[in-house]
Every structure is written in C-alpha cells, then in structure tokens.
C-alpha cells in the first residue's frame, strides 16, 4: 500500500489560505493537525464555513463527518459569521454571584438575541465566557475587545448602545 501525496489546492486565491496552509505544513499535514488548522482558519476568516471545512478535510485526509464533529464539539469554533460588534459576558463563578445572569438577561431582552446568537440586523453577537480571569472586576464583560468591569445591567446596555449606535 502506498499513500499518494496529491496536493489539495485551496478553494480560492484568497491570501488568507496561505496562513492555513502554513499551519498544516508546520504539522506535516497529519490528520492530528485538525484542531490547530481549524484555529488558524477561524482566526483568518472569522468563522468556519462549509468551504473551509471541506478544504481542511481534503488537505488533512480527515473524513468530513469527523471534521464537522470536531468543529461542533468545541465551543470556541463558530460555524456562522459573527455580528459587527460582539459582547462576551463573563459567566465565571465570581461574576455569576455578582449578578452576571442579570446582565445577560438584560442584553438578551434589549436586543432580542440569545447567548451564542447574533441579532437579526447582524449588529451584535452575544457570547458567554467561562471565566475572563478578571474576577477582580466582577461582574465583567468584553465589548468589542475592551474589558468592562463592575457592571450593572443598565450600564452594560448603555455601553453597548454607544458602540452600536455611536
């Protein structure tokens, strides 16, 4: 038995595929490189669509269903594009006992979106984190990459409004 090493070409000319290829090359195109490759793909494209998953599957010789199984097992991976803005509410224990659930509830109510989802107008993605490590600032959230601490539900929505409707 022999294995052919037919080179699988990226799905498009997009330069970002070079980054994905680099990760696969670094790890010898081994099937075990799947998670690292998905990380690079998501980092480069923001999320994992069917086109990327098919390419990674072919390039690493991992069955499609296995790729999909891995991509959906780990909550870090997004299979849908994210909104223009995002808000990550920390649900670590320290934040929780200081009212993080109320903050999340207020956001969900105000923007009609569930944690893990994106608003219909694609303006806001709401996510939760297990712990931001900012327990000293509890309850905390990250709004477009900026950590905001010691929040009340009202303050959080105020801050979100400033970002979404400046």
């Amino acid at each position: 038995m022999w294995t052919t090493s037919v080179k699988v070409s990226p799905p498009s000319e997009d330069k970002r595929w070079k980054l994905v290829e680099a990760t696969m090359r670094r790890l010898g195109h081994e099937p075990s490189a799947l998670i690292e490759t998905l990380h690079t793909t998501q980092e480069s494209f923001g999320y994992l669509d069917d086109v990327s998953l098919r390419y990674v599957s072919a390039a690493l010789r991992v069955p499609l269903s296995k790729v999909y199984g891995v991509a959906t097992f780990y909550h870090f991976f997004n299979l849908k594009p994210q909104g223009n803005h995002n808000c990550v509410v920390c649900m670590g224990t320290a934040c929780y006992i200081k009212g993080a659930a109320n903050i999340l509830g207020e956001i969900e109510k105000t923007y009609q979106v569930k944690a893990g989802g994106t608003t219909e107008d694609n303006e806001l993605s709401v996510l939760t984190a297990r712990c931001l490590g900012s327990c000293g600032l509890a309850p905390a959230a990250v709004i477009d990459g900026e950590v905001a601490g010691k929040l009340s539900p009202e303050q959080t929505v105020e801050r979100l409004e400033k970002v979404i409707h400046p």
Partner: protein
Amino acid sequence: MIAEELSKTAAAEREAQAQFEHRINVCVAASCLSSNSDKIKSALETEVKKKGLEKSCQVRGVGCMRLCSRGPLVSTETQGEDETQPASVLYQNVTPEDAPALVESLKGEPVKALECPTDTPFFKSQVTIVLENSGKIDPERIEEYIAVEGYATLLKALTTMTPAEVIAEISRSGLRGRGGAGYSTGLKWTTVAKANGGSRKYVICNADEGDPGAFMDRSVLESDPHRILEGMALAAYAVGASHGYIYVRAEYPLAIKRLRAAIRQAERNGLLGTNISGTTFSFTVELRLGAGAFVCGEETALIASIEGKRGQPRPRPPYPAESGVWGCPTLINNVETFANIVPIIREGGDWFAGIGTAKSKGTKVFALTGQIHNTGLIEVPMGTPLREIVYEIGGGIPGGKAFKAVQTGGPSGGCIPAQHLDSPVDYESLIQLGSFMGSGGMIIMDETSCMVDVATYFMEFCMSESCGKCVPCRVGTAHMYDLLQKITRGEATMADLDLLLEVCDVVKNTSLCGLGMGAPQPIFSTLRYFRDEYLAHIEAKQCPAGVCKIHEGNEEVIA
C-alpha cells in the same frame, strides 16, 4: 548553553539591572491588563523619557502582583543607601494620569493617595513558592528569569543527578497533583519512568484551566512561563521523555503569546532542543490550543484533543502513564504542579515536605474571588484554616453582609458553610467536608447568594460541558439541571427532590469520567449544609435569599 554560560548571562543581567537607580514595575497580567495597565506602562515610559530619566529609571512589565481587586497595580523600587526612601512601594488603582506623580515620587515622598499597604495579612500571611517570581520579573524576557537562577536547577540536575535521583527528590517532597484529585506526583513519575515506551514518551502540561472562577494557572503562565518549561524539562529528564506538549486554552491569548515567546527564547539559548547543555538529553515543547471544552481537563480527553479529535474521555485503565498520546507512555501534570518542580529540586524534597500538613505538602495557590474585600491570587501553606483565608487574607465580607459559604473545587466541588471555617485547607479535609481541592478556585458567598441557585449554576455548567459520550452524564446532567430549575421556580415537590437525589447517585457512580462523577457534588454539598433553603423553595415556595423568581405552580403530584 552550559552552566558556566548560564551564570555569565545571569551576572550580566543582574549588572544591567543594577545600572538603574529606580525601577517601576507595572503588572501586565490579565486582570490588570484588562484595566488598561498597558496604557499606564506607556504613560510611565513617556514620562520617564520626558524627565530624561531613561538611564536611571527602568519601566518594565511584570507578572501578577496578586491583589487583583486593587488593580492596576504598580510598584516602585529604589536602590542605594538613601535611608529616607522605602526600598519598594506598591500603588493601587493606578491610572495613566498618575504617571507624572509616580515618576516624581521617585525622588521624594511616595504618592500617599495611591499607596497600597503591604504590611497587611494579605501579603504577610502568604508563602510564595509557585509565585516566587510572579510580579518580580518580566515574563517576556528569559534573561530576567535566568537572573533569578532560572534554568540553573535544570542544568544542575542534568549534570549531577540521575533521573532516578530527580524522581526520588520529588517523591520525598510529598508533592501531590495540583489539578484536582491530588495523586502523588512522585508515584506518577515513577510509573511513567518504568513504562516501556521504546524511545518515545511524552510529557504534557495541562493548562486547560477551566473551572469557572479559577485563574491561578493563567497567572502562572502569564507571569513566569519559563518556570513551567524548566519544570517540564526536569520531568522529561526524570521519566525519559523527549517531547512535550502544553495544552493551553485558546481563551488565554496572553498566556499563549508569552509561552510561545518563552519556548522560542529557551530554544535559542539551548535550554530546550537537542543535547541540552551538551548532555545527551533532548527535549522539545509544542503548544496545543484547547478550543473551549472543559472536559479536556480530563487526561484521556486531553490526549484525544491533542491528537486532533473530539475531546472525549475513554475508559481507564489503561492509564496515560502506560498508553497516552499516540499510544505512548505519557506524563500529565498541571501547571501548578510543574511550577513546584524547580524549587523542590533546587531546595530539596525535605525542605518542601517541611511545609504544609502531614499528607498535603507545600503550598496551594488559590484564586480568591466573590463577595470578599481582597480579590486576587493567594498562595498559602497547605493546612491554613479557611477562616484565616476569608477574614485575614481576604479581609472579610464587604458591605457588612454575613458570610454564607466558600465554594472550592469548581463544578466537582462543594460549598463549605460558616461552621466549618476553622477547618484546614488540605486534600483530605476538603473531601471530608463534601468539597474538593480542585485546581484552586475559591469563591466566597454571602447571604445574598441562594444555594439552590448556586447548585443550578454549576449544573448548567456540567450539562453544557458534558461531552455526551456516556449516558448518565449526557442525560443525567440535563435532568438534574431541569429538576433544580423546577425547584428554583417553586414548582417542585418532595418527590422531585427524591428523584433528583436518585439521578445524582446514578450519575456519580456510573459515569465514564470525573466530570460526570463529580457533577452531582454541588447538589450533595448544598443539600448537606443548606437543606433548609431547598425546603423553603419546595414547601414554602420561597427563596430566602431573594434570588430565585418563584412561579406559583398549580400542578402537584398527589402521592
């Protein structure tokens, strides 16, 4: 790099540091960084430049200074004989606007308004072994680590100790795994060392810290990454491995960045790689990123994840020590365990065994959070009473509220009530109290927390983190969560409570891995100490803490 070159580098770095009369240290670990400590650092740098003090005053980023609730933290150090100046001053709640005042103070009096007292129990009661370099060195420069004798222990062991002697020292120290269950580290190393792996064995650092409310490992990785690499290298030498992985959460970008830099620096200096220090010992380390799955803290799930698969555990035995990553003998320890290795080899196992209690040796790092004055990272000797941690180190409960419970051990742990505050913190005592050491989250709750709600919170966690492989954990956690919700809504009956306990029993005893086995623990411990709160929800349809929203149920089982 051989030992001689290493001491030369250390001496050169120390000399370079001595050139500066003053040093301003800005905490650049995650918590302070999230309150803009990077901007403070650049403001200080600008100010120093403006005053023309670049030659005499160094501004640098350092690791975690522990009192996170007062962050951003900045410390100033002054050398020399000037007796009127305190050698070191710690400042709290610093903003970029404070930069001029801080730089000005180097020549005169400390800035009183920002001063953070360090003669308090928070600092004085701590014993730093794991965190000995944290907040003192720049984690992004290997030279600073070398200047505090970093990698000297590794080179000493490689040239003067046999692998068996290294293991013997670890065994003598009594060190137990800091990731959870507290398995003897010496025993684990011995098993891997004895395993017949041909030429391939692996050492894995479990940095998939996932307990909600725990950030000890993150701080260690961000504050002193070389310490972990050196500990792993010592382990690899001891068990006969030549490859290592650090499995770190993708949610920790700063830790990843610093680890990557540290690995590169160590390789460049010949402290990782082939034929380290001219010996036959070779050791390489690679990073693998987790992707948001708590279950990957479980050894066999972590291995599956490193192999690029769904992070699902498999039945043990065989244990990873015999058959781990790629089927090879594999040693897995967590971050804090590896952080203890260097001091043990450097100072000797007996020294380490002199700290702590009869069965729990050394210190333990905790992330102290919740309804407490001093939130942050603490390191205390094993056996320290909980009361001392809560009321002295932690400074007690804010707002005149009453203490209710301290939660340890994360989602597999429990809530310890006030009547047990005099218990010492060690592996056995915590288990006796229905809790668990876990990785070191310690969350203080006051009277405003509802314990049924807290149990529901942890069950939601376990449900969404269950990998779904085994039936009891996959389905049982969902049922436990639903039943708890029914209780918090005031819709449950005593029959529901009985059913809940029965499901708990099955999940605890039949689940495949520790996640399922430990999942009912928060229910057991809250029921043990706060049964009246459960009864209040069920019988009186009331939430004593006023947290739960009670729905008047109109359907009841008539039994």
